[in-house]
């Protein structure tokens, strides 16, 4: 039998960035699964009066515009066709689906997504949505088209015509020129870091972090021919940090103005991070890949925590270091995370902690290992999630420090419940 090599995609290089960050064409990237993308999106859309659907479209446009503009320069792509190809191939490579931009001209046209992460992978098996979920796709198409034709980021409006999530067979987005271009925010790019080098990994473990990172570097995390990344039992995306930060912090700022709303809003952002930890990290820890690489090094439950922290350090979240670990408490230092870096670039120094994702994620990994006993291979479904979260010993995380507030690192203090 003979194999046929896949057609090569036109892509920018993945730039090495300090302290565990992932960058391409100046855009920070982080792995997020369909569970996080679902829970984050559903949180942002809860209050319809906030106008977050438009924000999400525009944020995706800003990130795509930045990537395609800088990426085209990097690769020497000069024609709109070449640049649109870069946009489509990147969309597929990062796990967002397949995006056909061949019918887009300088005056607009229709973008089509035969497959779509946001259209198809958020859908719960029990039902489908009342409103289209492919907001990211729509914005990405608009921003990419503008960049392909050398236009400002707000040059195209995007109207969603169809989406898998509401039962359509494919996604379709109509792009039309906005003349003059809309007043538009731009991607924050790489963000603002502290440039503080993290200490070496905690030595009080049997786990070899560098060995794990090296082994994982051989795994293929690119989107398949449908533009989807099916790995660890979830659908992954390599998401733009600039997109996530814009939509999350815009949501927070709009909520601050409403009496009594910011606390529940922040609790739900943290919970989205908890879901992320639970499903993505849980998927990793119940995967054959984990069994092959990490599990053989684990001689006790603490090693599982050190092992999953090592994996986190390969996912674009900056660098995590275990500072303290007991049966009832975990303290993690997070260096150079995309949340604080982005917040500082967008708004300067924060007056309150901003690292919602890692706050929930740290509790999620602790709950999986200490409370949910992930080593026993539970099924990571909603029932298990609810059992763990409702358990009296379910853990919570406090942010003792936060980089966006001027601290050297973000300190995540996870404490088991009573």
């Amino acid at each position, binding site marked *: 039998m003979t*194999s046929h090599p896949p057609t090569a995609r036109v892509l920018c290089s993945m730039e090495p960035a300090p302290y565990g960050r992932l960058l391409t064409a100046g855009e920070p990237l982080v792995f997020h699964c369909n569970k996080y993308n679902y829970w984050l999106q559903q949180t942002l859309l809860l209050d319809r009066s906030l106008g977050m659907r438009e924000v999400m479209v525009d944020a995706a446009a800003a990130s795509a515009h930045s990537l395609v503009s800088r990426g085209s320069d990097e690769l020497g792509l000069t024609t709109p066709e070449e640049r649109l190809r870069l946009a489509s191939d990147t969309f597929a490579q990062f796990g967002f689906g397949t995006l056909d931009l061949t019918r887009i001209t300088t005056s607009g046209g229709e973008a089509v997504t*035969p497959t779509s992460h946001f259209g*198809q992978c958020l859908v719960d098996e029990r039902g489908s949505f009342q409103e289209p979920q492919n907001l990211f796709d729509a914005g990405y198409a608009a921003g990419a088209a503008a960049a392909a034709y050398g236009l400002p980021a707000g040059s195209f409006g995007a109207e969603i015509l169809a989406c898998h999530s509401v039962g359509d067979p494919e996604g379709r987005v109509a792009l039309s020129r906005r003349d003059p271009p809309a007043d538009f925010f731009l991607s924050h790019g790489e963000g603002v870091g502290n440039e503080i080098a993290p200490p070496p990994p905690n030595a009080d473990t049997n786990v070899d972090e560098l060995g794990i990172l090296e*082994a994982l570097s*051989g*795994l293929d995390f690119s989107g398949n021919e449908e533009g989807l990344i099916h790995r660890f*039992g979830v659908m992954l995306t390599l998401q733009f940090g600039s997109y996530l930060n814009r939509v999350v912090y815009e949501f927070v700022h709009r909520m601050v103005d409403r009496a009594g709303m910011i606390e529940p809003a922040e609790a739900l952002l943290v919970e989205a991070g908890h879901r992320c930890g639970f499903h993505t990290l849980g998927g990793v820890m119940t995967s*054959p890949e984990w069994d*092959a690489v990490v599990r*053989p090094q684990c001689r006790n439950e603490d090693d599982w925590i050190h092992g999953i922290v090592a994996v986190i350090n390969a996912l674009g979240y900056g660098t995590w270091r275990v500072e303290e670990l007991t049966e009832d408490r975990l303290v993690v230092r997070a260096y150079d995370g995309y949340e604080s870096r982005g917040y500082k670039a967008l708004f300067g120094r924060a007056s309150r902690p901003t690292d919602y994702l890692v706050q929930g994620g740290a509790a999620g990994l602790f709950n999986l290992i200490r409370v949910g006993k992930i080593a026993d291979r539970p099924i990571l479904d909603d029932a298990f999630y609810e059992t763990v979260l409702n358990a009296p010993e379910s853990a919570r995380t406090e942010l003792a420090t936060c980089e966006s507030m001027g601290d050297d690192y973000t300190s995540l203090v996870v404490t088991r419940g009573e």
Partner: protein
Amino acid sequence: MSDRTVSVERAPRCRQGLEWVFTATPSLADEDILRAVTQLLDGERWTTQSTRLGEAVLTSFVVPFRFELRVGLVPGQLTLLHRMRAEEPARVALRERLAGLLGASDAGVP
């Protein structure tokens, strides 16, 4: 005829129903699984990729827009990933064919 049985289980963590795990009893060696895979891929256009992970080697076979097979990480086990656009009748037929090929393999582990 082989008296081997093959269990075909939907991975409960995959909500979309795309991921299925095939396990034979008595167990099959990886080379026997690969023999069944070879028969399945006969006449198809496919790609393959191998990755070393610790002591194991993960090998994947992809028939574009239809399915992917992963072999090698768990001894005796094969994972099938349907592609999103593959129609349900084709998915069912593929699982039945693959289970048949695995069950018919005569070179089992002693």
